[in-house]
């Protein structure tokens, strides 16, 4: 009788077309136990205090990084900056859960995750500075270029994870997306491919409530974005995205499952973008001050500091050390971004193809001649 069954998973009640006694009542079909869960704060006392302190330190440094980059934008040192202020728990947890050989697939908003992974801030920010599309070496850092077309990085993460698995290498790929990005077709296709291929990939949706100005209720009618996992046959997890240990633990679980051959997971982290979409955005057009204020109360650093002090694993010295490190980073950023970069106009032609085409060689010669003529004029 199984030849009549186009379904292939456990979890669906024993109902088949052509079953001798067809059910006459609607039968609920959702699997039990539910693959979609909300994850609360883990039992922190079981956590390695060093790890908790590391999370805290990264949060503090991350916040300062966001603030400094925002300031640099106001000073015209960056072309644009989509800050992750308020979302630092997701950013640093994403960086922290990945091993050296794992890959991160960040979006334009995730430079902090990239920096927290170890990429130099100057290199991580060339896209947003306007000096180069990608300043870091993706292979060396195992960090894909910051991705701007929404959700298009998700299938890349799947393909990379799939390739690694085919090669027998225990690599996990983590793709970062926003709530808005879940509406794109590429999100759907990536999750489906991941589930069908059993690819070791984790999708982290930072649900910050808005896609630029569009609130989640105009984006999705689902009970949660984590529920989208059901349609692909993968586990879904909903977590407080401002609770750093919670995000860390749910991502760790997902990364470990992926690495162990358990396939992909969709994680929704509820968080909030404290700043506007970018410096170019006017958030007062679409959200209220009380809403922002409520989320400021639920700040990831505040929560973390309170929790760790409560546990007794954080003291004033550690707080000061983190603050100092943050200031050092900010000072370095100010210094490094102070001068304009030296850019080679001829780099326009350097990497379009492995070898420039005859046409590009001609065009490069044209630009070189123009530059020489300009230099001559300038010299006179």
């Amino acid at each position: 009788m199984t030849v009549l069954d186009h379904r292939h998973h456990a979890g669906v009640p024993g109902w088949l077309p052509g079953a001798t006694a067809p059910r006459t009542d609607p039968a609920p079909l959702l699997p039990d136990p539910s693959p979609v869960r909300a994850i609360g704060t883990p039992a922190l006392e079981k956590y390695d205090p060093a790890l908790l302190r590391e999370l805290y330190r990264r949060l503090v440094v991350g916040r300062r990084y966001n603030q400094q980059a925002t300031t640099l934008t106001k000073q015209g040192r960056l072309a644009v900056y989509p800050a992750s202020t308020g979302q630092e728990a997701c950013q640093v947890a994403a960086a922290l859960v990945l091993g050296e050989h794992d890959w991160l697939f960040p979006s334009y908003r995730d430079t902090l995750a990239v920096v927290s992974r170890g990429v130099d801030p100057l290199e991580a920010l060339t896209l947003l500075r306007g000096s180069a599309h990608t300043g870091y070496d993706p292979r060396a850092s195992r960090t894909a270029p910051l991705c701007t077309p929404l959700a298009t990085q998700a299938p890349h993460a799947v393909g990379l994870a799939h390739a690694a698995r085919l090669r027998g290498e225990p690599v996990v790929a983590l793709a970062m997306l926003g709530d808005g990005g879940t509406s794109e077709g590429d999100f759907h296709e990536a999750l489906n491919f991941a589930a069908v291929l059993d690819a070791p990939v984790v999708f982290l949706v930072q649900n910050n409530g808005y896609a630029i100005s569009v609130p989640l209720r105009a984006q999705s009618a689902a009970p949660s974005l984590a529920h989208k996992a059901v349609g692909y046959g993968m586990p879904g997890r909903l977590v407080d995205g401002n609770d750093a240990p919670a995000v860390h633990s749910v991502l760790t679980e997902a990364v470990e499952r992926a690495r162990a051959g358990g396939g992909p997971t969709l994680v929704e982290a509820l968080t909030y973008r404290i700043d506007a979409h970018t410096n170019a955005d006017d958030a007062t057009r679409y959200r209220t001050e009380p809403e922002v204020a409520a989320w400021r109360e639920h700040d990831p650093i505040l929560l973390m500091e309170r929790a760790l002090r409560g546990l007794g694993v954080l003291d004033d010295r550690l707080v000061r050390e983190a603050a100092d490190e943050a200031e050092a980073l900010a000072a370095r950023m100010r210094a490094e971004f102070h001068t304009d970069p030296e850019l080679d106009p001829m780099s326009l032609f350097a990497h379009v193809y492995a070898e420039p085409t005859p046409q590009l060689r001609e065009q490069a010669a044209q630009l070189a001649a123009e530059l020489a003529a300009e230099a001559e004029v300038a010299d006179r």
Partner: protein
Amino acid sequence: MSTAHPSPTPTLGGASARRPSDVRTASMAQALNSGLRDAMREDPAVHVLGEDVGALGGVFRITDGLTAEFGPERCLDTPLAEAGILGTAIGMAMYGLRPVVEMQFDAFAYPALEQLFSHVAKMRNRTAGRLPLPITVRIPYGGGIGGVEHHSDASEAYYTSTPGLHVVTPGTVADAYGLLRASIASDDPVVFLEPKRLYWGKAEFDPDAPVEPIGRAVLRRTGTSAVLITYGPSLPVCLAAAEAAQAEGRDLAVLDLRTLVPFDDETVFRVVRSLGRAVVVHEASGFGGTGAEIAARVTERCFHHLAAPVLRVTGFDVPYPPPMLEHHHLPGVDRILDAVARLQWEDRG
């Protein structure tokens, strides 16, 4: 970033520009906003949909105030999915509405290309005229605004090479309004390409002044030695180049195509035949760009009138560069004048 517009000069062949009665100053962005508003006021079938077009008024504020005036149903913030937006607009048009879709940036229209190529461009033909799709797809396009990757593509070639679409692109404030109104009123689908870098340039603007219809090119500057053929974002650059050439003693005409499909063969051929020398200017990459079509058809039809080959001044055949390098990519006055200098003037004696 040049955003100044010269006041319109009389067209070569069309109606001469009427002196506006109720002149005010507006940016192209404001003119487009007025165009949408007036179209929505006049015709309840006009619906706007896209990402952030509601409370925010669009990232360029082109839809500013429309939701306030017409309600969220007439100006709809959609989920973030371009194929879904255009596909939904197709269904709305099938039911008799006249949707105006906003794509947020050039490169973010690409997810909708299948809907555009396989349905929007073909539905009328597919149904022998029974299901026309009066959809306007507004796409801010091109560079010169310091935008990071994916925010500056000059993507017109994808549209101009697709039969069944009209492709319209204004280069002046007045045309922004007039061509947008005409596009929305058209019973055919129109890809309406808005040159981002001209959004903020102001000019005198009278919404009641008539503009040349879709399908007509307009001579923005008369000249006696050669013609610069251009459109949209490159129009001000060409006018500046003509100004500079004047100082060097060369009198260049500037022809603004306004509509890439249908193409105004008549006006273009007449101007080229009368001058014998032409340079096509656009910022999109040259290879396979719309300028290739222009150069090819002009040569095919005006061959014996040409004193020199039709030259093209375009962006290089490279992915759009980062903002700090974009000025090397974009055709500027010097590059245009270099091309003009290569128009074999010595041959004429």
